[in-house]
């Protein structure tokens, strides 16, 4: 009797000899090309070294996990240096698709899959370490907004490690390594996992959709543009933050049950854009600039006063941000309600001057608030990137 393995081997041999007759070169090349295509995600990597930490000015990855930590009592500046040293080496290796030093599961390091992780520091960290005077300009604790219903388990944090990749197994392995190397210094405060599209779903540069169906991020500065540098990357202050940025994180729950009761025209008026095309109500395609003055035949504003894009638009004072929101999905309730929303991340040079005035306008009036509820909130300073022998946040903890 021929064992299954033997059968497979002999049929492979037969196929090989047939291929030899037909021209093995072409067959082998096809096989190699197929293998290459099938593992293309594993091979894609993001360059770790550079002026900025990675995972911000980067086309959004498929999956993410944001992990925050609270410092152990008595943590010193020297502890912080040793922690950052370990994280820098870990992130560098995993960005290259390699296991970390002392990796308990090196066999999981099968490819980079655009792994990225950046580190950030909340205002509470500066206070605990007694270095409030080193807080970058424009990093603030957000005031309480009337629309908020914030939960402790989704909010705050001394240190953030924001990990992302195009593969869930690579992400999980990466988070595990970074958390293990953090535990001598801190305890986990919260972690929030999320997702976006799988690569290959939308062309690069096309705005992704959130779970309400909206295109989300239309007004963003384009990646790799001067505009992006202007909005996001800090140019002055101490060296550790030059090339860094400030993050506003908001966990925003979506009330899909009631949102889905609206008509598509109704949804469009709430947003100020059509759902399908993402075009402003005064235009025909997503890239059209909204005309906030345009009026209908009966004299009403085409983009209503309560529309989200009107309330969020820059008042001319440089109130712009770069949004990079992931979606989250929690277990469905017994009644069938989806518990979904956004891990809403916005990057800017100065929270006080860029995010805050915009958010105050949105909190005051934005019809979208009826279907969205901020339930988590935190702010972080993200140090610049590293080159050569440097360690993340070098200089801050000396």
């Amino acid at each position: 009797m021929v064992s299954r393995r033997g059968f497979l081997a002999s049929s492979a041999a037969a196929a090989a000899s047939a291929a030899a007759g037909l021209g093995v070169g072409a067959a082998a090349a096809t096989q190699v090309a197929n293998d290459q295509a099938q593992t293309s995600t594993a091979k894609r990597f993001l360059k770790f070294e550079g002026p900025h930490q990675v995972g911000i000015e980067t086309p959004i990855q498929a999956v993410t996990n944001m992990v925050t930590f609270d410092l152990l009592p008595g943590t010193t500046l020297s502890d912080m240096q040793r922690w950052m040293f370990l994280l820098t080496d870990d992130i560098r290796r995993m960005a290259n698709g390699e296991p970390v030093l002392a990796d308990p599961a090196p066999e999981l390091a099968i490819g980079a899959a655009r792994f990225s992780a950046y580190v950030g520091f909340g205002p509470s960290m500066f206070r605990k370490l007694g270095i409030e005077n080193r807080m970058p300009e424009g990093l603030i604790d957000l005031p309480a907004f009337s629309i908020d219903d914030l939960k402790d388990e989704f909010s705050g944090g001394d240190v953030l490690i924001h990990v992302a990749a195009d593969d869930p197994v690579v992400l999980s392995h990466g988070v595990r390594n970074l958390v293990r190397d953090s535990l001598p210094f801190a305890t986990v405060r919260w972690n929030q996992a999320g997702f976006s599209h799988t690569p290959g779903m939308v062309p690069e540069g096309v705005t992704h959709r959130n779970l309400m169906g909206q295109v989300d991020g239309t007004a963003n500065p384009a990646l790799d543009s001067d505009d992006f540098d202007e909005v996001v990357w800090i140019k002055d202050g101490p060296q550790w933050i030059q090339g860094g940025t400030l993050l506003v994180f908001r966990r925003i729950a979506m009330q899909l049950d009631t949102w889905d009761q609206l008509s598509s025209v109704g949804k469009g008026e709430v947003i100020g854009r059509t759902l399908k095309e993402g075009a402003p109500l005064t235009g025909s395609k997503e890239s059209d600039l909204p005309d906030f003055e345009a009026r209908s035949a009966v004299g009403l504003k085409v983009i209503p006063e309560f529309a989200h894009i009107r309330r969020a638009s820059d008042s001319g004072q440089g109130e712009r941000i770069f949004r990079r929101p992931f979606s989250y999905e929690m277990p469905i309730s017994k009644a069938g309600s989806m518990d979904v929303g956004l891990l809403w991340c916005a990057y800017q040079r100065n929270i006080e001057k860029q995010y805050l005035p915009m958010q105050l306008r949105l909190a005051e009036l934005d019809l979208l608030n009826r279907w969205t509820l901020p339930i988590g909130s935190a702010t972080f300073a993200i140090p610049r990137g590293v080159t050569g022998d440097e360690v993340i946040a070098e200089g801050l903890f000396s």
Partner: protein
Amino acid sequence: MKLRNAFLIAAVAPLLVLTGCASTPAVEISDPWVRASDYSDHVGGMTGVFFEVKNNSSETITLVGGSAEIAGKVEIHEIVMSGGEMVMQQKDGGISIEPGQTHVLEMGGDHVMLMDLNKAIVAGDVLSVTLDFEGAEDVTLTDLVAKPSDGGDETYHEEDHNH
């Protein structure tokens, strides 16, 4: 700060082999690390050092011991089964590596033991350890990184090491 030299050496060494450069080290150490744990975080404590060692020479080499400023004693240890239990003990004669072969020192297996620590070793520390070889020059691992780790069923009994 120049904390990454150990990694740079590890990364550059294989390139030297590929290009057949004359400066290929006879003894090639990659990914060295030292374990930071409850056993190492106090004076008088102990811990293990782990790495891969490749013998690029044409003679058998033997890792017989070592020295470190931070440790009163440096020994080569192995883990063996004894009476149904994993027991760590000093490895008689050290670790021999044939020409062209690689030996892995890992948690739960052979390792270099730093004992009678005169200073705590905590996560993220960087230290220096010299490895003594017979059949090759001694190798000093500078910038040896202390990593937190609980793997390999590695528990130490401090009283067992007073031999």
